[in-house]
């Protein structure tokens, strides 16, 4: 084979001279809802919650997106029964519901894994290493994109830009941020997910499951908003520099800069410490303590689940952007 690297769009070069799209679905990743599997866990409670969602909007149909999120949280996919239930509650046809369900990429027509993993391969993340991450994840799990491991634990998706570009290359699990990823971190993360270890998002909560995440997105909070840091180190970088330099908006009190310039790695470490110290109630939520640390996605083995106070957050040893290929 040629030297085509991973992520280079494989579909094209092999059939040079066969341009044309007669044989390719325009939306190969879409398709209809899988009607062959009628299984469902939707019951009266689900119906009541669907009706509640519909009541939150001036016009009930506005609730359709949240309702489909709720269906996924119950059935692990957009199920035929879920389509029916939404149609029934809103007084529209199942075709109308299916039309919406097949438009949005977050709605899954086949069961997603307990944990749903995404790797960003839009331009910037791809260039920064996202292609390698996707290849690594796919190889390590033994599954391709849009597939689920045979044990049902992990599904894999190639995601588009996730609005975390200053943390590139990024991944996500159950729509929680996994920032500043490397192949090594990706492998450790996937192992932890597979083994059922506790995993924390770099800027979020302790990971629950894709279904539980879908329930929150539907509009039923899970009480985890106070977990995790206020911001990641990159988010605080400009603020930290302004503090160091004594800069402020007009009329604001000038921060007393410490006069240290050009040592951004230290500033970031400070930011990490600052955030880590305020990450939440350590007694009640042991997981939240150091979650802004660059290593935070790694297994939480250093801390017991019983609430041992988080050890002093590790100082970042590399600057962002370091460690690049020569």
């Amino acid at each position, binding site marked *: 084979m040629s030297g085509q*690297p991973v992520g280079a769009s494989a579909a094209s*070069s092999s059939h040079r001279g066969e341009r044309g799209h007669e044989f390719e679905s325009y939306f190969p990743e879409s398709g209809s809802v899988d009607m062959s599997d009628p299984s469902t866990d939707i019951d009266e409670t689900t119906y009541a919650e669907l009706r509640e969602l519909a009541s939150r909007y001036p016009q009930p149909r506005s609730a359709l997106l949240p309702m489909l999120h709720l269906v996924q949280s119950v059935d692990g996919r957009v199920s035929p029964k879920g389509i029916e239930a939404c149609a029934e509650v809103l007084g529209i046809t199942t075709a109308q519901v299916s039309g919406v369900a097949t438009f949005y990429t977050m709605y899954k027509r086949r069961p997603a894994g307990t944990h749903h993993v995404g790797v960003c391969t839009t331009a910037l993340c791809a260039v*920064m290493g996202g292609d*390698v991450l996707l290849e690594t994840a796919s190889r390590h799990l033994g599954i391709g994109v849009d597939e689920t491991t045979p044990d049902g634990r992990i599904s894999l998706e190639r995601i588009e*830009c996730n609005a975390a570009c200053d943390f590139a290359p990024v991944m996500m699990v159950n729509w929680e941020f996994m920032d500043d990823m490397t192949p090594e971190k990706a492998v450790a993360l996937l192992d932890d997910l597979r083994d059922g270890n506790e995993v924390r998002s770099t800027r979020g909560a302790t990971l629950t499951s894709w279904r539980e995440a879908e329930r929150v997105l539907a509009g039923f909070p899970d009480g985890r908003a*106070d977990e995790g840091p206020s*911001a990641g180190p*990159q988010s605080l970088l400009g603020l930290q520099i302004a503090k160091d330099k004594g800069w402020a*908006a007009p009329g604001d009190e000038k921060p007393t800069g410490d006069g240290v310039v050009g040592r951004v790695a230290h500033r970031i470490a400070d930011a990490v410490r600052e955030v880590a110290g305020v990450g939440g109630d350590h007694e009640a939520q042991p997981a939240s303590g150091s979650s802004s640390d660059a290593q935070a996605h790694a297994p939480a083995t250093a801390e017991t689940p019983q609430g041992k106070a988080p050890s002093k957050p590790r100082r970042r040893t590399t600057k962002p952007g*370091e460690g690049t290929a020569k």
Partner: protein
Amino acid sequence: MTDLLTPVLTKNWGDEKSWTLRAYEKSGGYDALRKALTMTPDEVTGVVKDSGLRGRGGAGFPTGMKWSFVPKDNPNPKYLVVNGDESEPGTCKDIPLMLASPHTLVEGVIISSYAIGVHTAFIYIRGEVLHVVRRMQQAVAEAREAGYLGTNILDSGFDLEIVVHAGAGAYICGEETALLDSLEGLRGQPRLRPPFPAVAGLYASPTVINNVESIASVPSIIARGKDWFGSMGTEKSKGFTIYSLSGHVANPGQFEAPLGITLRELLELAGGVREGHELKFFTPGGSSTPILTAEHLDLPLDYEGMAGAGSMLGTKALQIFDETTSVVRTTLRWVEFYKHESCGKCTPCREGTWWLVQLLRDFEAGTAREGDIETMLDLCDNIGGRSFCALADGAVACVTSAVKYFRSEFEAGYRTPAWELLPYELSARFSVPATTGAHV
């Protein structure tokens, strides 16, 4: 002369539990709301209009003017919809804002709703950011509990409810009319204008749609006045804004500065392009804004400065790429994004982005044919400006600007694969281990 960086929106991001009501109130939160409620709605709109605040979501339309387009004699309810569907490649400012200080947005929504005469407002957040949704849900609940939302807010007689709404994965829903369709429970597809949303928006009622950062800027403008706001920025691009640096920069991150700062200044603060490398090209405001190069380093990053260089300020998402980066590969990935995200409504965009991807894949593989550059540009001519919304324009902007500045790299695509011309592993942030099969 103002300082190089002026934290206003980002000022409390590092505070202890900054996302909670208690922390926000401690830093003066909701004082602006109290002040606004002593003013008439028209006065509030007037201050925002006179401040010169322009939309921070990309187009730069004056925010106060948008509000004033809402007809007062329309008997239908009026709606405010906050566009938190941040999905433009490179853009990553609204997400950290809502994560760190959701109450800034809530306060902005209440003040803005009061000004426009809205009693139901929506915050539409892209679905892929679970923790942001959590924080916004909690902030709205806290605000309601504290009497900042609900009926007779702070004894003013003003009523308002906010609905936090999560999307379901569709870039197009960041386009304001597609967002409205999505919020009505439909496939997210743009509408033909006119009528504009200010006249017939959500449920065919008068609707204002503003970006998160625009609305979040309102409380400080009300609290400190238009002159204070106008003391930052340039003549036609007033105020502060959040610039996001990402990519091949030593220290990527968020930088809040007066409009008009230059990329050279920002790069200096960010420690420069990653060590041992130099700038090749950048986007000023996301992938839909034509790329620029090192010759544009000293241009003011404001609406006029970028337009003058043939680009756009967009979302101020500065994606930095160094000399190891293949322009062909990057352009292909952007166009693949637009192809994936095209809603399919307009033929030029739906079909055109598909064909652009075919051409660009050939350029990447080194199998493009002589003349394919012209074919590609011709195709771009038939896509841009020929669709309902700006997605099509964004899809071709990265192509035409890439060819404009790096034509020879596309010409190399007649013979040489992009990954041979510029080995991809050199661009990665980490050393690519041989075992990953980066080169088979």
